[in-house]
Structures are given as structure tokens and as C-alpha cells.
């Protein structure tokens, strides 16, 4: 019943398995707060775009589907950004800088093309929620390493004593690549071991 929901979390995790959305992941994993903010904003937009595209899929001729999806996604993101800025300024202040990044997030277009354009509303909603959780989880894992080791803090609160010397490079752009490489390697190792075990 909920298999479309759970597949995005581990088995088809958008970042770890499909390797989509790497660019915004590099940019927003410097702190755990930012990672969760990006994940929340991303999930909201993905739910909206999956639902709309699933609803209008029968009207869109196959030859112009990609431009149609892009128009829908870009409009949706712009409208959400303006509504948030006006009516929920506190959330906007926290998430506002990530919203323009979502337009260039290829997971949204990827899910529209690979899933929502071929499935009904209920399945598309599950798919969006699952992929949203999976992406947020992936961002949070990377951000935890980067923030903890790069600043000695989590959510901006010091975790280690004052004697800890932060590994500054981890919160710089280069550190995003380094951390992501290690995390991807670990995830691949676990997945391969799992596959061997289960044949």
C-alpha cells in the first residue's frame, strides 16, 4: 500500500542512490539547520509539482512534456516563494535562500519525468513524500558530519569542549566534496554488502 512512499528513503534514495541533486546538497550541508531547511522547502515543492504534473499528465503531448514540466515547476516555486515571503516571514527568513536553489534541483524534474507523469495522484503524493524524506535524511547525514567536525557544534550549539580545534575545511566548499565522497563510499559499501548477503 505504501511501497511508493518507502522506496525513496533508502532503496532509491535520490541523493545516495540516484545521485541527483548533488549541487544544492553541496551548498546547504554546512550546518544541520540549513540542511533541514533545504529538505523541508524541497519536500514542499516536490509534493506540489508531483501532484500538479500527475493531474495534468493526460493533457500534455509527449513531445513538449519537458518544457511543460519546467514551466510548471518554475511557476510553482516562484509562487511559493512570494507567498512565504509575505505570509510566513519567519519561515521565509529561514528557508528563503534555498527556494531559488530548488528550481535547479534536478530531483524535482526527475520525479516529474520518471514517476508523476506515469502514475496517479495518490502514488505521486507518496512518491513525493518518500523522496522528500530520503533527500532530507541524506542532507542531514552529510550536514551532521560537516557541522560537528567543522565547527564543533550541532544546530549552532557547542558539543565538544572549548579545547576542540574545528576542522575548518569541512564547512568550506571543498569540505562538502570530501564529506560527500566519504558518505557515498560508506553508503555504497553497506548497500553492496547487503546485496551479497541477500543474493
Amino acid at each position, binding site marked *: 500500500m505504501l511501497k511508493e512512499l518507502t522506496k525513496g528513503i533508502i532503496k532509491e534514495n535520490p541523493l545516495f542512490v540516484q545521485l541527483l541533486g548533488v549541487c544544492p546538497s553541496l551548498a546547504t550541508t*554546512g550546518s544541520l539547520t540549513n540542511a533541514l531547511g533545504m529538505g523541508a522547502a524541497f519536500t514542499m515543492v516536490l509534493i506540489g509539482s508531483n501532484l500538479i504534473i500527475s493531474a*495534468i499528465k493526460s*493533457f*500534455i*503531448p509527449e*513531445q*513538449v512534456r519537458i*518544457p*511543460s514540466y519546467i*514551466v*510548471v515547476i*518554475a*511557476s510553482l516555486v*516562484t*509562487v511559493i516563494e*512570494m*507567498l512565504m*515571503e*509575505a*505570509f510566513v*516571514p519567519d519561515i521565509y527568513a529561514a528557508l528563503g535562500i534555498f527556494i531559488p536553489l530548488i528550481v535547479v534541483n534536478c530531483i524535482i524534474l526527475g520525479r516529474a519525468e520518471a514517476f508523476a507523469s506515469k502514475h496517479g495522484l495518490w502514488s505521486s503524493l507518496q512518491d513525493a513524500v518518500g523522496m522528500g524524506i530520503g533527500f532530507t535524511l541524506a542532507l542531514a547525514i552529510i550536514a551532521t558530519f560537516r557541522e560537528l567536525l*567543522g*565547527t564543533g557544534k550541532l544546530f549552532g550549539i557547542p558539543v565538544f569542549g572549548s579545547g576542540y580545534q*574545528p576542522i*575548518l575545511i569541512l*564547512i*568550506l566548499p571543498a569540505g562538502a566534496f570530501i564529506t560527500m565522497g566519504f558518505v557515498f563510499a560508506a553508503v555504497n559499501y553497506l548497500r553492496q554488502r547487503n546485496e551479497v548477503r541477500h543474493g
Partner: protein
Amino acid sequence: MSKFISKLTFTLLILCTICTTLVAGAYNLTKDTIAARAAADVKESYKQVFPQLGDLTQEKIPGGIIQDIKCSKEGGKVNGYIYTVTPSGYGGELTVMVGISSPDAKLTGIKVLKQNETPGLGAKSTEPQFSGQFAGKNLKDPLKVSKQAKGEEIQAITAATITSRAVVKGVNAARDHYMKTYSQGKG
């Protein structure tokens, strides 16, 4: 064939029209609220760098790194000026707001509004530990940055001397202009 092409064109046309209408509608719905909020944010920043904020009037802008000057009047008497300056830091321009009280030529506060400095180093310029030390400084002489600050000097951020110098350079640009223009040679 041409019927097929016109069908594609027509679908895209309709879709784009609907989307544009929605975006335009959302813009109209939200633009007043957003503008009001932006104005309130600016006012809040003015208050932070200049707590005795009175009625603001626009002053002539001399150019250079000084982007804006506002004159604050309390009961018809000038009680200070608020400068917005953009010195160059390590990662591009910083936008810094500087409050100066008049006529006693003291800093009432600064606020780094925008910066693109190194996280964990220069980005600390927005934290009160650095920016808080400016309030109350006497501007008779230009401010100086030091790694071991004493007296009227500004304590530099560890490992971010360029950023620290940039902020102080911005404050000094405001100070120089203030001394030359508004303090009638008393400085």
C-alpha cells in the same frame, strides 16, 4: 503535420498563460505585504545601529564606498547620522551600516548587513563579539584595528584580519565624511 505542430504550440501557449497568470496574481497579492516588511526590516536595522532614532531625512551621497546617508532629527535638532558603506573584504563587498551620534561624534553601533566572507572566520564579523565593540567608540581619530586591542582600538577577528580591516575601513570612511561635512571643523 501542421495540425500536429499547432496542437503542441497551443498546449504550451495555454500552459504558459495559466502559469503566468498565477505568478502575476501571486505577485499582486503579496507585493504590498513584502514591501512593508522590507521597510520594517530596514527601520529595525537603523534602530540597532542608532538607538536614539528620530525622524529620518535623506542626505546627499558623496559616492565612493558610501552608499547612503540618513540624517536623524529629534525635535527638529540633528542627533546623528546613519551611513551605509560597502568596503571590500576577503570575499567581495561587505555592506555595513554605521551609526554616528552628533554633535559628540561617537559611534552608536554598526551592523554588517551583507557579507560573503569565509564561514567560521570572516563571517564572524556579524557576531556581537566583533561588531558589538564599535558602539561608544570616540571618532575624534580614525579607528585602528589591532590583534591585541587596547583603548579605542578594535580587536581583530582571529585569522580574519582582512575582514576586520575592511569593516573598520568602512567605518572610517563614514567617520571621515562625517568629520568633514557635519562637524564644522570641531573634530
